Each structure stands twice: as C-alpha cells, then as structure tokens.
C-alpha cells in the first residue's frame, strides 16, 4: 500500500512559563495518494499542531520529535531550504481564517504569483497568467479584476477561494486544510467543500481535512482520525465510524451532533460532560476517563494504547 505522506510517532511539546505542554503525543498517520483524511477533535486536541509541526510551522517555543516523511524527505529534520522545496509546491496548506491569513498589503495577483515565481521560476507575466487561470478554476468570478485587488476588498468566501487557488498553483500532491470552513457562512461553507471535492477529483490531490465539524468530515472524508488530548483515540473508515463508533469519545461527539430525526425526543442539545483536559495536568490513565460514561478502575490507572483502530479498554463493548 503506497503512502504519500507519513507521520510516524510524532510528539509536539511547547515550553511555556508554566512548564511543558504536550500538545501532540505519539501520533502516527499515513495518507494514501488521492485520499481524503478527516482529523477531528475539540480545540486544543492537537489536530492543527500535528500538521503545523509536519510543515515546520510551529511557534518558536514548540519542538517536534518523531518523523514526517514526504517523498524520501523527513520534514522534521530537513533544513529550511529543502523544506521550502516541498512546502507550497508538493505539500500545500490552507488555513482557518482567510481574513488574516492573506497579507493585507499585497495584491491578490502578487500573492498568488510569488508562489510560481519562487517554485517554478516563472516570470512575473507568466505567473500572473497562471494565477488568473487558477482563480478561474476555483470559480472566482471576475478573476481578472480580482488580481489587482487587496484581500480586504474580497468577501470571506472569495478569500478562501484565493487561499485554495494559492495552494493549488504548483499542483501539490497533498493539501492540508486546517479548518477551511470554520470562519465562513454556512452557504459559503458548502461551496468551499464542493470546491475541495472538485479539487480531489480533478487534480487527484490527497486532502487532510482538519476540523471540529463532523458534518464536514462526513461529506468529504474517506477515513477519519479522532484526536483527544494530543492523541489519536480512534481511526478508521468514515462510514464505519459514523455507524458504529468504538471509542466512547467518538460516540459522545456523534451524539452531540443535533439531528433532525430525533428532534421530537431531544429538547436540549446533548453534550459530553466536563471540560477538555489541561494538557499540562493530564489525568492518569486514559485522558478521557473523567468524562467517560464507561470508566472503570483500569481506565483510571492505565493508558490504553492505540490497538488496531481504537485506544480504549472498553472498545469491544462499544
């Protein structure tokens, strides 16, 4: 089975004035060519930091250990020059907030063009033509005019389309989408998801979709990995997990999604009791045990390893 992007045993630590924070622990993920992997979890579960680390974009106080392989290069140990041959070219990334993720003082055409000028050694004129072409392919209306606009002159949805166009310019093999729809209106969200689906089909790009929105995952992903407190707690085929989740946390997340069918019975929204844990003071044993409905003494004492598809002692019963 071929793998295009391989994360092995990744650990991410942040040193803070209050001590070390274990943001990501022992995460392994393998991405197959052209597949769409969903990565879900609450805020602070480490889902974004996993790929920030993989792309060498950690904040200054963060360190990553383990390995992230792309085409024979370990991105964690590669020097800046080698990393920059892959970033934005073979592996591209789009971010949550298209308002702040584009440079405010640079025209859209220039921000797009510089990717091609750098990676493809194009002239400014060629880069502009290619940028225009890409804007059209991501269905930006009046694309020619947009090239000479500043990001603040575009709507949120258009900015995200510009971000996606920027990511696709070099025809990457892997697109990492970090909460691509979170900051957008619901109707615009649907349009952006349609676009990502199209990207996958037309370009054969493998997509990592990082989100806290299970609805987004259901619509796009083939496989899903669920993260909790910096660890993967369940991973598997998206249909199977939605139909019969094995980890109590996944089951809890799914039951939190309001559904039109059971509106008769559910008057209040279902929630998982308790708070996500403080990463500096993780509970002993399974990090989820204080909030788990199936908790017993073993869960409190011992941390379950990711065996097969899930990290839970109670998985058989689930």
């Amino acid at each position, binding site marked *: 089975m071929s793998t295009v992007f391989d994360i092995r045993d990744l650990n991410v630590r942040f040193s803070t004035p209050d001590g070390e924070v274990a943001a990501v622990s022992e995460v392994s993920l393998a991405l197959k060519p052209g597949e769409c992997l969903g990565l879900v979890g609450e805020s602070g579960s480490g889902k974004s930091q996993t790929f920030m680390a993989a*792309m*060498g*974009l950690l904040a*200054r106080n963060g360190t990553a250990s383990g390995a992230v392989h792309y085409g024979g290069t370990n991105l964690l140990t590669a020097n*800046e*020059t080698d*990393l*920059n*041959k*892959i*970033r*934005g*070219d073979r592996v*591209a*990334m789009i*971010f949550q*907030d298209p308002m*702040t*993720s*584009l*440079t*405010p*003082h*640079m025209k859209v055409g220039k921000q797009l063009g*510089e*990717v091609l000028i*750098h*990676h493809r050694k194009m002239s400014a004129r060629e880069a502009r033509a290619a940028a225009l072409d890409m804007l059209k392919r991501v269905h930006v209306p009046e694309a020619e005019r947009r090239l000479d606009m*500043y990001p*603040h002159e575009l709507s949120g949805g258009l900015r995200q389309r510009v*971000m996606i166009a*920027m990511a696709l310019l070099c025809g990457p093999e892997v697109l990492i989408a970090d909460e691509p729809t979170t900051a957008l209106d619901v109707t615009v969200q649907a349009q952006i998801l349609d676009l990502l689906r199209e990207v996958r089909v037309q370009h054969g790009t493998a997509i990592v979709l990082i989100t806290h929105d299970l609805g987004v995952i259901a619509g796009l992903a083939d496989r899903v990995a669920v993260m909790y407190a910096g660890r993967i707690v369940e991973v598997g085929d998206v249909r199977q997990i939605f139909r019969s989740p094995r980890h109590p946390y996944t089951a809890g997340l799914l039951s939190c999604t309001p559904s039109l069918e059971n509106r008769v019975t559910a008057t209040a929204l279902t929630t998982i009791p308790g708070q996500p844990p403080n990463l500096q003071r993780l509970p002993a044993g399974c990090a989820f045990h204080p909030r788990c409905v199936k908790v017993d003494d073993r869960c409190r004492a011992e941390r379950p390893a990711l065996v097969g598809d899930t990290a839970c002692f109670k998985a058989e019963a689930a």
Partner: protein
Amino acid sequence: MLSYIVRRLLIAIPTFFVIVTACFFLMRAAPGGPFDAEAPVPPEILANLRAAYNLDKPLVQQYADYMVRMVQGDFGPSFKYKDFTVTELIAQGAPISAQNGLAALILAIMIGVPVGIMAALNQNSRRDYTAMGFAMTGIAVPNFVMAPTLILIFAIWLKDTPFQLPAGSLGDGGVKHRILPVFTLSLVYIAYLARITRASMIEALRQNFVRTARAKGLPYRSVVVRHALKNAMIPVVTFLGPATAFLLTGSMVVETIYALPGIGRYFVQGALNRDYTLVMGVTALSAALILIMNLVVDVAYAYLDPRVRYDQR
C-alpha cells in the same frame, strides 16, 4: 488622496492659528517682560522702548497687529538680539539645525531599524539582549551626559590619533565637525527606533499571513522583507512623524554643548529672556512642522496598509 491632502492642509490652518494664539497669550501671561533683566532704566526710556516694540498698546491690539504682520511673513524684531528680525535669526539658524537633524534622522533610521529587525529575528537570543541593552542605555543616558562624554573620548583622550574628532562648532565647515553633534542627537532616536522596530516586527512575525507565506515555501528572508516588514513599519512611522519635527528644529542641549548656531537654543533662551517675538517665531515653525509631519504620517499609513482609505465618505 490628493483631495484628502488638500482638505487636511486646510484644516491645519485654523489649528496653526490656535497654537500661535495660545502661545502669544501664554508668553504675555508669564511674569516679567523683555526689558526687566537689564539694568533699571528711567521710566521715560522704558516707555520709549515699549512704544518702539509696540508693547504700549492694549493686548488685543498687539495681538491683532502681530497676526496681521505674521500672515505677511513678518515675525517682527527680536527683543534680545537687537538689530535682528526674528525671520533673520531663524533664516540663519534653521539650516544648521535642519542639516544636523536630517543627518541624525537618517543615521537613526539606518541603524535603529536594522538593529530592531535583527533583534526581532533573534528574539531572546544573546544578540537580542545585547542590542536591547544598548538601546536601554541610549534611552536612559541624557544627551547632556552623552555629549561631554563623547567630547572627552573623541576630542581629548583620542587627541592626536586618527580617531580624533573636533568638539563641535562649525569650524571650517567640514563634515568632521558635524560627526559628534549628529551622533549625540541621533543616539536616543536610534535606541527608540530599535525598540519600536523590534516590538512591531515580533508582532508582525506572529501574524497569520506570515505563517501563510512560510507555508508557501518562500525563503525566510523574503517572508520577512515582503510580508512582515511593511506591516511592522506602521508603529515606526507613527514615531518618526513627530520625531522628525523635533529633530529638524534642533536641540538646545546639543547646540549649546557643541557651540552650534542653530535655532534649538532659541526655544529656551527666548523663553527665559521673554523675547516674545523670537519664541513666537520658533513655535510657529515647529508647530507647522509637526502639523505637516502628522499629515505625512497619515498618508504613509495608507501606503503601508491599503485598508486605510481616506477618500471614501
């Protein structure tokens, strides 16, 4: 943008008159008068003097007369430097102050901004701490301490070495005579610029769009120069506006210690001598400069951040 500039200049005119008016009456409100410091003169002579300098009329009349002449570019005769008009004094001194100020400004930008960027890129490293340590020293040491210290080092201890520098005065007019005064003048601005640039650069490097630029695979140098720098320059420009106005109008301390005939000393000497017209002249000059520099800063904002637009209603 042009209509905005014109509008701002039109608004600056009433502001300018308010400043000049306030200054006029504040000067007169201060106790004492221009002729009190001299040996007591007979009342008849004093009356003649007051009449000659137009001080015998009611205050409002004086104010009206002064304003009418000022609008025509006539700031009147100096009370202290007799035989000179204020316009002549400023015309002689202003170029000297402005040259030194401009040189100090350029020096401050050329050193302060790169040092600040370097410190930000190496945040919390030894280089950062060293640079910021020097900057703190530059801010903490007043220029009336710095100037004599520099004179001691470069004019006295290093005498007869290639590093010897003249202790100011215009001398033969050579560049060498300007080195110490310009350096003294710029030191505190180098320090402030380094600190402001460092802080705003650190802030800019944390922005999401800088992360995007890095994710695009651009070399770090072009991430910094093309994406972060322009954003980081906004606080620097804010500081440079009024700083330019202050630098160009000279410094009393520096001009006194290095014996430079600029206009910086007129601010203090004029006020102490109750040289009403001279104080009014230098105040009008620096008020106009500050008003212009504020406009330049606002126009620069629009260049640095296209979200700033002045033309729309």
